[in-house]
């Protein structure tokens, strides 16, 4: 075993190769759980012991090391002696890229037998190629817990073949959940979600995947302006010069070509709304009429109180706060951020006392510390107007 270990620089390249390498091991006869373990072993080895020389073909290196790790594992299991014999005789041929295997891995990691929490963890490891420790750190749970979450997820997948056609809408739902997790530490989870969605867009011919990618890019573009000095900055007050212009340009271009396919779906509709915000040089120049139209379009793909709430806020901008309040009323106060929306519309309507009380109520119900602090500031501002 003399092959050089990749230098730290190609860590990203290593991770990109993970899903394909897992697929190659499975095609050579490894079961998914063992293949994934073996690739993780190889990945950790590469990340922990960077060698002096780079390796030109990272994928080939990973396949070699992972395959050996897999064989070691099989050999250590004496009850599988016969199987070892068969597998050991498989030639170590060079890896052959198979897009279907990689796509199959997306389906497997988001399989309906998995809970969303398990699907997210497994996707981050087997598709995004993060280590268990990195995932545990990102979600602020102990490594032992995350290791078990991943291990149980893999156990649930025993007997499910990698090449079974899967449910693309479920893959997209899990990736969108992942994107919205919002945690970040050493690893930017949202950026990882964008990366694996970008890879999925290459593997599929589905405008909704492009729509999802565009949506993520357009939202992520605002990230630098969302929190400043520990404070949450609402969309209307964000410094738009901080937005990532490249991400916006790319997101809009991807969305436009997706829309040209004329197969509209919820992610394209949401991306269109995000694009209209991105398009406005100032908050005042936002095309709210078109945004309301896109919310109406979005509702045709599935009614949801959250969409209706966001639509009501848009109606408030397009047609005035009274129209917004009328649209908001039937949504119901159990929907998250109902009181925040109510407060905002009341403030716009000039009903300051009610607005202050609603901001305070929204703060009481907030499940994010940053948002709570923001809402308390709004309540405070309305109770004590500045001179």
């Amino acid at each position, binding site marked *: 075993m003399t092959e050089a270990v990749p230098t730290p620089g190609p860590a990203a390249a290593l991770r990109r190769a993970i899903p394909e390498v897992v697929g190659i091991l499975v095609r050579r006869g490894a079961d998914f759980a063992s293949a994934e373990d073996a690739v993780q072993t190889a990945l950790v080895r590469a990340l922990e012991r960077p060698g002096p020389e780079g390796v030109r073909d990272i994928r080939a290196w990973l396949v070699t090391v992972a395959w050996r790790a897999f064989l070691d594992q099989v050999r250590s299991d004496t009850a599988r002696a016969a199987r070892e014999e068969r597998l050991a005789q498989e030639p170590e041929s060079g890896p052959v890229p198979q897009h279907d295997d990689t796509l199959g891995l997306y389906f497997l990691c988001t399989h309906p037998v998995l*809970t*969303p*929490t*398990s699907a*997210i*963890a497994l996707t981050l490891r087997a598709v995004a190629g993060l280590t268990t420790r990195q995932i545990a750190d990102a*979600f*602020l*749970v*102990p490594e*032992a*817990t*995350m290791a*078990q*979450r*991943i*291990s*149980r*997820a893999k156990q649930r997948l025993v007997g499910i073949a990698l090449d079974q056609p899967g449910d693309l809408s479920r893959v997209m739902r899990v990736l969108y*959940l992942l994107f*919205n*997790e*919002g*945690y970040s530490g050493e690893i930017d989870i949202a950026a990882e979600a964008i990366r694996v969605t970008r890879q999925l867009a290459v593997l599929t011919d589905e405008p909704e995947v492009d729509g999802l990618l565009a949506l993520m890019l357009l*939202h992520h573009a*605002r990230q630098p302006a*969302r*929190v400043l000095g520990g404070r*949450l900055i*609402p*969309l209307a007050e964000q410094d738009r010069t901080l937005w990532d212009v490249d991400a916006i340009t790319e997101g809009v271009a991807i969305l436009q070509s997706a829309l040209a396919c004329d197969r509209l779906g919820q992610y394209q509709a949401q991306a269109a*709304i*995000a694009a*209209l*915000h991105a398009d406005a040089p100032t908050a005042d120049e936002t095309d709210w009429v078109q*945004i309301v139209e896109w919310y109406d379009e979005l509702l045709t793909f599935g009614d949801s109180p959250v969409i209706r709430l*966001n639509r009501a*806020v*848009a109606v408030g901008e397009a047609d005035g706060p009274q129209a917004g309040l009328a649209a908001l009323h039937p949504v119901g106060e159990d929907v*998250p*951020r109902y009181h925040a929306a109510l407060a905002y519309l009341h403030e716009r309507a000039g009903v300051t006392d009610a607005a202050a009380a609603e901001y305070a109520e929204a703060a009481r119900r*907030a*499940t*994010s*510390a*940053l*948002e*709570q602090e*923001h809402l308390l500031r709004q309540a405070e501002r309305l109770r004590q107007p500045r001179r």
Partner: protein
Amino acid sequence: MAKYLMLKHYRGGRPSVNSVPMDQLTPDEWAAHIQYMQDMEERLIASGELVSSEGLAMEGAWVRFDGEGRPPVVDGPFAETKDLIAGWMMIEVDSYQRALDVASELSAAPWAGGTPLGEWLELREVMSAPPADVG
């Protein structure tokens, strides 16, 4: 996916179903109670849901800032406190329903006579990252 804190109270919470005071438990009953919670921790690690679990010492004090350059004001050990937290488990689960089920399981730890303690646990959701911008 959300994190929940289950708070156990020595006192200050609502009375448990099995109301035998702690100091009247036999050593075996106490051991069974502790074993149940350790087993439960292991189950929650195995299910990939445990974030943390700690018991707190009975002794404690109230402490507060008393002005720049002055020593802190200390009141204790808990002479008059009405509420005393015994410990916690924090879990990360898929749903509120699952959090309720785990809390119910924890509440069922055996107590005097080997019957479930049936203590009231305070269940609190942990604050998360802020939601994305509207739009």
